[in-house]
């Protein structure tokens, strides 16, 4: 489903060129569960952003479902993000003035889905994550774990093929973190691929496939035989 070969990403910081990713090769099949680990600054987020089409590689090939993504226009990339990819971030990125339900509804609104259909889909997504009773609450009335589960509901409301979670538990206590990971794993079991970036070795060890990154390179990938 996801195929990266020889991917490089270089950031120009002042006079210096920072190799955020160098020669990354990665293949992900549909429904896989992968944990990406590595020290801060090793390029985990950059890799996720490229997979999620928020960023483009400077060199190399990225094919998503056999489509070469480098040829896609800005609007086509947005459309792929909308329908095939679900992002979950460390800092939740909920819109503070909107309720939990309204936050979850946003992707449907952007996609122009009919309001009546939106309501039922949002309700279903929230109840699947055990958040029905929080639907009308604003983010500042929710705990960290609840916020992240709202964000997960939003990321998956469009039924994407892959969830990209960038340190989703980095901002909450262990117990809430466990809940959040459990929610993500439930979705993975229903068939969505899950790529999880984490600092926590305990959480990382739950994934069947583990990738270790250092200095923009993949040091170890248990999925490559």
């Amino acid at each position, binding site marked *: 489903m996801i195929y990266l070969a020889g991917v490089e990403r270089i950031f120009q910081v002042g006079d210096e060129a920072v190799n955020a990713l160098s020669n990354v090769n990665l293949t992900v099949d549909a429904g896989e569960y992968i944990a990406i680990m590595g020290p801060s600054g090793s390029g985990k987020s950059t890799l996720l*952003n490229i997979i*999620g089409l*928020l*960023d483009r590689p400077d060199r190399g090939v990225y094919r998503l479902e056999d489509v070469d993504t480098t040829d896609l226009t*800005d*609007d086509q990339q*947005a*459309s792929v*993000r*909308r*329908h095939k990819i679900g*992002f979950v*971030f460390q*800092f939740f*990125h909920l*819109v*503070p*003035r*909107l309720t939990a339900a*309204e936050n979850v509804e*946003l*992707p449907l*609104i*952007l*996609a*122009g889905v009919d*309001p009546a259909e939106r309501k039922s889909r949002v309700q279903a997504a929230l109840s699947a994550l055990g958040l029905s009773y929080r639907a009308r609450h604003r983010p500042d009335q929710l705990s960290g774990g609840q916020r992240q589960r709202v964000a997960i509901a*939003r*990321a998956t409301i*469009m039924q994407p093929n892959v969830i990209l979670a960038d340190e989703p538990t980095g901002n909450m206590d262990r117990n809430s973190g466990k809940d959040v990971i459990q929610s993500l794993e439930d979705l993975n079991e229903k068939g969505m691929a899950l790529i999880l970036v984490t600092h926590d070795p305990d959480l990382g060890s739950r994934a069947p496939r583990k990738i270790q990154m250092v200095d923009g390179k993949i040091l170890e990938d248990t999925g490559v035989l």
Partner: protein
Amino acid sequence: MLLNDTIKLALSSLSSRRIRSFLTALGIAVGIASVVLLTSIGEGVHKFVLSEFTQFGTNLIAVAPGRATTTGISGAIISNVRPLSMDDALALERIPRVVAVAPFVQGNAPVEFGKRSRRSYIFGVGPEVPTVWQIKVAMGRFLPYDDPRAARAFAVLGSKLRDELLGSENPLGRRIRIGGERYRVIGVMESKGQMLGFDLDDAVYIPAARALAMFDRESLMEIDLLYAAGSSADKIAKKIKGLLIARHGAEDFTITTQEQMLDVLGSVLNILTLAVGALGGISLLVGGVGILTIMTIAVNERTAEIGLLRAIGARRRQILVLFLGEAVVLASMGGLAGLVIGAGGAWLVGVAVPALPTHTPWSYVLLAEILAAFIGLLAGVLPACHAANLDPIKALRAE
């Protein structure tokens, strides 16, 4: 994305910052209110002035001595101008389709009755004035058709002068003194009110020839002609011109048709309305700058939100529309409030100061609201473009 949702999202973000949105909308509201109020006053004055000028009828032509040259200097100060005489007025009466002719000379003099005295306007006129000026006699009769050069010393009082001078006494047949000369009151005019500051009721009408003698003038100030309805003002003006040139040997007079006057007046008043409207437009501009400022701040504050929207699949154009929508909704709501304030203010002014008439045409109201929305659009373009062109990754990291 549906229009409905765009507006809802805009409203939700505007209402989450109530005070700020209120103040920004207030800027537009003040602008629109002042545009509406000022143009309402402008239109009101326009209508008022036109009605003042048409209250004497529309089929009028005025002849005045002296020639208004293209340089704008009245020829009256040049010495070879012949006076406009009573004979001229009599000659003009013979032009076909001219219904009535009213010679006119005006001055000031004390009017005395017994021990009471009052300085009033003295209108030296002919017997046809009620027809030409469309004014009515309330009591008695108007000046009779005497020999114009030797008219009897009869006077007709304006209603106010009659009240001030004679009170409730029956005025008919009373002897009064005007400028020291003895006159007999034969009639009282209906109240006509003020016209452009002239109190037409505080006046006395006497035969023109007598007024000329009283003020020691050779020339009438004006001859007003009433022509039959349906005639061409220009054709009659041409005949008047030919006749007077024949009599004077040169064109040393000025003919103004009511039509011309109303045209000129109308365009002057339109410019006036436009000018005051533009004055209000300046405050509208300031309101627009307010929206520009607040939208720029909003985009900066919500950079992370923009990144998020891009991450969940918003196209650049959708981000643009969202922020433009906010600016337009903000401006439109301000505009709506401004309309209410402006139209209400105009109505209040009309009620509180009857001397300052106001009129709010609906087309202006609609135009003002469209203008407000347009200003929102204009002010929103720059910040919205900035928002749409943000790099989603950098935007996401902005928290």
